[in-house]
């Protein structure tokens, strides 16, 4: 049993390595474009809602804690506490997604969805022709920033947070399965690899956000502050 458990954990780690490389590529793209257009990236970042971003970070960290407690309660054989922890984790995960949705809607309102994907709320030049250049986006552009490069930031923002949200949705699905299996009493201190492996996945998604939050939300705050 011991060997089986270790093999399962190891397999999950190998999967997480591929996930690290996958997100790594996006972090790489982010770094290259940020170094090319620093002013635009700072301006665009300042438009993100720092309060919601911070709250969401705390929510996700809390969910990681409850997930760790779910694994702990399974290990010591407390099924009730285990199920409560799993349900809490799921609820916190859904809270995160809800807040993310509010933020996305805010970007939609300010016409910041890149690439003119939304016909009635285009990004960029179309807005300029109406005679109110950058105000439509409610951006306070720093010197040297252009709307086109802000658009680049939002491509990366939506790609990265979107991919992260997809991972959260998958994680929420996995949690539902875990809760169902726990209710049927399938896990005990001897056998609980699924709980542990989903836990690893959940923590990994948390780690991605730990990096996304400062890189997307915080990079230009000190420039806007007092300026």
């Amino acid at each position: 049993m011991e060997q089986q458990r270790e093999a399962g954990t190891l397999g999950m780690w190998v999967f997480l390595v591929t996930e690290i490389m996958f997100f790594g590529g996006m972090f790489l793209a982010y770094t290259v474009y940020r170094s090319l257009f620093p002013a635009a990236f700072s301006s665009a970042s300042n438009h993100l809602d720092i309060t919601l971003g911070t709250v969401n970070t705390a929510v996700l960290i809390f969910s990681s804690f409850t997930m760790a407690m779910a694994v702990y309660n399974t290990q010591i054989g407390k099924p009730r506490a285990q199920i409560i922890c799993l349900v809490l984790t799921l609820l916190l995960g859904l809270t995160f997604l809800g807040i993310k949705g509010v933020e996305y809607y805010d970007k939609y309102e300010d016409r910041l969805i890149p690439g003119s994907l939304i016909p009635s709320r285009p990004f960029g030049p179309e807005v300029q022709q109406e005679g109110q250049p950058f105000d439509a986006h409610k951006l306070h552009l720093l010197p040297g920033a252009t709307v086109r490069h802000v658009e680049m930031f939002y491509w990366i923002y939506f790609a990265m947070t979107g991919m992260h949200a997809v991972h959260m949705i998958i994680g929420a699905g996995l949690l539902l399965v875990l809760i169902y299996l726990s209710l049927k009493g399938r896990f005990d201190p001897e056998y609980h690899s699924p709980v542990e492996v989903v836990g690893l996945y959940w923590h990994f998604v948390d780690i991605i956000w730990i990096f996304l939050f400062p890189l997307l939300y915080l990079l230009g705050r000190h420039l806007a502050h007092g300026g």
Partner: protein
Amino acid sequence: MSEHIVPVRIYLTIFLVLLVGTGLTVLAAFIDFDKYGFPSQFNTIVALTIAVAKATFVVLYFMHVRYSPRLVWLIVAAALFWMAIMFSLTFSDYFTRNWLSVGY
């Protein structure tokens, strides 16, 4: 059952450390370190240092790597190593393009 069980006290401590780290990183983001003579990009360095520290705590304790077999350590290290290769080779291209004025 030779599985290591991490005590609740440690989980709670890590949870609090992560929250404090989040608070610190937000506070630090509003300070313009350039004004106080720090090297440029110091804000980014602070933010990333805190992020790396937080991630390390999650990996070591929430993900139990600290108590895991050497093979898990090896896999984590391999991931970081390949990531470093990916970043350094790409940067050696992008960040050196303007060293020569051959024009693109």
